[in-house]
């Protein structure tokens, strides 16, 4: 179980009491996102579609690397990794939303 830092995009900060970075933990990305749901309810609905797939327009990075170049949701995490959740469209975080 690794402890990591997760950067939260603006549209999801309502779920984290407006924090733009939170701590997370898990063996893999999938694990970590599932734990995130317990700490901050509502994440799952926003990140996964009705069929349980990660939404098409969400990109997740581990230490600046897109997880699609790694092992996707099965990517293993190490202590101190930095995770970013970023909307895919033009990589945008979107200030005003």
């Amino acid at each position, binding site marked *: 179980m690794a402890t990591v830092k997760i950067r939260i995009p603006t549209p999801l900060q309502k779920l984290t009491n407006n924090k733009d970075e939170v701590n997370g933990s898990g063996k893999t990305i999938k694990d970590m996102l599932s734990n995130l749901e317990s700490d901050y309810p509502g994440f799952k609905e926003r990140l996964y579609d009705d069929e349980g797939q990660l939404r098409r327009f969400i*990109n997740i990075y581990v230490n600046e690397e897109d997880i699609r170049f790694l092992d996707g949701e099965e990517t293993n995490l190490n202590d101190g990794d930095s995770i970013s959740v970023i909307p*895919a469209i*033009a990589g945008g975080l*979107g200030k005003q939303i």
Partner: protein
Amino acid sequence: MSFTLGLKCRECGREYPAEPVHVCEFCFGPLEVKYNYDEIKLALTRDVIESRPANMWRYRELIPIDSEPTVGLHNGFTPLVRAKNLGKELGLNNLYIKNDSVCHPTLSFKDRVVAAAVNKAREFGYDTVACASTGNLANSVAAHAASAGMKSYVFIPHDLELTKVLGTSVYGTKLIGINGSYDDVNRFCSEVAAVFNWAFVNINIRPYYGDGSKTFGYEIAEQLGWAAPDNVIVPVAGSSLITKIHKAFKEFEGLGIIDKANSKIFAAQATGCSPVTTAIKAGMEDFKPVKPKTIAKSIAIGNPADGYYGIKVVGQTNGWGEDVNDQEIVDGIMLLAETEGIFTETAGGVCVGVTKKLCEQGRIKKDEVTVISITGQGLKTTEAVEDHLNSPVVIEPKLSIFKEIEKDL
């Protein structure tokens, strides 16, 4: 007068007011402009369009700005060239080149999207525009900001072609090279956009920006005598243009401006950066991002924002996707230059090379009306061809010497 009805998420359909936002806050899908087509149908007819000056604003009702444009007034309406010589080479009887290598003012189709974006940015009250760019967008944002009297910040990969760098800084923009690929620049800019209150044309202004490139498609249809072509070959980078050309034909069909929009849309990429065409060939619904390695830097985007929709448009229209290697890109540039006298950049070489492949595969038939999209200017990427061209023969100015060497030229 405005003909828009706000923004709508392409994925989940949630609606938003017309603001500088581009991502659905619920599902992260892209937002697109919603138009009031009933009103547009009353206002925009063939006669109205034909009565207006020859620039992109002749389709003003279909460009998402509220007031009259104040910048980029002369952009667009580039030539649609009947390419008989190239057609002969490729075995096509009805081949055309849509030539945005001469688009005013910075010689690429990006002048269309930037004109829409900068006017919109002004309407929103911004005094600064910015972009992440592979070069052509950089040139265009810098030029339009200068002409609008706005400040501009342009972010590019550190290793762009010299002319694309100079052709940006000359306008007095603040130019920042980023150590990394375009995809790194793009992601970095999303962070900058979240902190600085600027109009990032391809980030927070993206829904409005993207619709500027619909004019490329409107013009093709108008210039073909109010008809959509059978085939269009489009270079794919972020994969927006290919979707907007399709949208343009469909809008014209819906408005009754053309009869039918049954064009097959073909995606063209460089083999060294071909996430979209690879997905098309493999029958995949979505693409897998890649790390680009190609001389076609203007279209070297490994993680295309609209890749998913590009793949969809190609599938829906019974088109196809092909890619060509660096040598084929150079051959494509030279073939277009030698047959039609048009010097395009690497992205254009990609399109010519891909068209050749599609002909060989029998996917394009010889009598079909086919349009190759040439979106950029060769003088901006001379590095790509310099090693492949003969240097001038240098001689003394003496007729006898010239007569000697003339037969060997």
